[in-house]
């Protein structure tokens, strides 16, 4: 009975489909890499991408390399630093902008001018502003998440149904109480969405920032995954480029999944039955 249920959980239709899809993708990739042309047709980049088997071999060799894990560690650290700083500043700022009209009027125009600037455009300025390279990378990462979080929090808090305020008020709620027990929980779903999107952007940004800035002071070992990819490119190890790319994919997936889990735990009323 239990084994049956386990089998069901592991091999249901949608999981099977996903596994088959990935397998087929890998097989096509492998064939493309090895045949140099696609069943007789020359396709520009096909012969130049290392085959998945070669990537796995390269990856296996890197598993024991502390430099590879150091790259993971550095990138994760920068992402977390930038992300938490963005939450710490962005959530209160968004809430205060939603609650206070005057403050919103003063801040929103500048905010809207700065928001469309891509975080990567900030890299040179940020290197000039901040004393260490580490801080400038963290700052660019911060910007990636910051604007998204603020705009989501602001939108979420502004679209709260006014009847909630009227009910709360007529039941004797003080302003602070309304903020704590109505505004905050009503905005929570938007905070979760903003954070999830922001987290995705921080991974995009951190890699690019690491490539541009040359990845911290301590050469190759302190560089992070972005620098790892760049270094592999310079060193001509194409297998390692792909390893770095997939590593970032995995890191982004894990952090999004963790955030989704945390968000669903924080907003139990949005779960299905």
């Amino acid at each position, binding site marked *: 009975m239990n084994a049956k249920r386990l089998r069901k959980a592991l091999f249901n239709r949608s999981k099977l489909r996903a596994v088959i899809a990935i397998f087929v993708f890998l097989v096509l990739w492998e064939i493309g890499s090895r045949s140099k042309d696609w069943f007789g047709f020359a396709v520009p980049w096909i012969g130049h991408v290392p085959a998945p088997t070669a990537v796995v071999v390269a990856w296996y060799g890197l598993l024991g390399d502390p430099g590879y894990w150091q790259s993971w560690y550095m990138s994760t650290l920068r992402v977390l630093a930038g992300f938490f700083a963005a939450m710490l500043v962005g959530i209160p700022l968004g809430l205060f902008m939603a609650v206070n009209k005057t403050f919103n009027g003063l801040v929103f125009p500048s905010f809207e001018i700065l928001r469309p600037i891509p975080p990567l455009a900030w890299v040179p300025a940020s290197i000039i502003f901040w004393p260490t390279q580490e801080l400038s990378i963290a700052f660019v990462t911060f910007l990636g998440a910051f604007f998204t979080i603020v705009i989501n929090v602001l939108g979420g808090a502004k679209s709260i149904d006014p009847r*909630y305020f*009227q009910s709360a008020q*007529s039941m*004797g709620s003080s302003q602070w109480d309304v903020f704590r027990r*109505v505004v905050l929980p009503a905005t929570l779903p938007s905070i979760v969405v903003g954070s999830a999107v922001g987290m995705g952007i921080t991974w995009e940004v951190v890699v690019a920032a690491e490539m541009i800035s040359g990845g911290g002071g301590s050469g190759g070992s302190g560089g992070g995954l972005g620098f790892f990819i760049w270094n592999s490119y310079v060193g001509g190890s194409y297998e390692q480029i792909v390893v770095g790319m997939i590593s970032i994919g995995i890191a982004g997936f894990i952090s999004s999944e963790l955030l989704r889990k945390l968000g669903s735990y924080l907003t139990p*009323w949005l779960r299905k039955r």
Partner: protein
Amino acid sequence: MNAITQNLSPASSKSPNMKIKAAEIKVTNVSKSYGAGLFAKEVIKDCSFTIERNKLTVMIGPSGCGKSTLIRLLAGFEKSSSGSIEIDGKRITGPGRDRLVVFQESALFPWMTTYDNIMYGPKARGENTQLNRDQAEYLLEKVGLTAFREKYPPQLSGGMQRRAELARAMINNPDVMILDEPFRGLDCMSKELMWEYYSGLYEESHRTNFFVTTDIDEAIFLADRLLIMSNIPGQVRATIEVDLPRPRRLAFVFDNERAVAIKMEALSILHKEAMKSFSGGSKAAADFVEAYSKRSSGNGPVEQ
């Protein structure tokens, strides 16, 4: 049906908090208009009535006759253009805890469980006492939601949400409860169920209640006093004392001759109102006039 009757009169539980405060609201010559100058639209004009102490007053009128505006004035969310509204002789100037409004559609907080929603008011005032917690449990039982105590509003049916909302309002023990078409949008069967639950709650407390609706059956089933509104600008056109016995149950209210007579009387007043505004060029009244003429030509005698 049996299960419902049991729910409505649980012999086992007694309300732990039975001290009912009840107030009386006097509305005197109230007018309210929106806009200014040439574009001013008068929604309520020279409207006077009393919401009597310990009674369930139902106001019925065609849609768009200013009922919701009147509720906002009573709640204190808006101010009247002229005239006065007094609660126990004290002028209403803003929202207050003595009056509680239950809105048209559910305004339960989706992020709180049924129980937390009901306890919102007491907690907001720092009165998370044993007495209030007992009262919350009691009200949960009264509205048949004990099993749904830890569920969130999106997980409740429409009718359950309205009942939870009644309980959430009632625990605050307001001097006057104001209900703005609280059962609107429910299907016919759940609506009738709501009437039984609601009148059961009312019959137990005899708190001052003011209930606004467009549904004539709902009005007659619930009311002690029935106020009939004119078309816009709103005024109270007639008052009918609904002297049907309590407790009211669906099974006998609609078989009751007296209830039928009251309904006919109310409809004929509403018809006269509709005719008046119809001849005044209002399209809103046309449907009512047509329906009424079909009804009176089709079946049964109608007093005119």
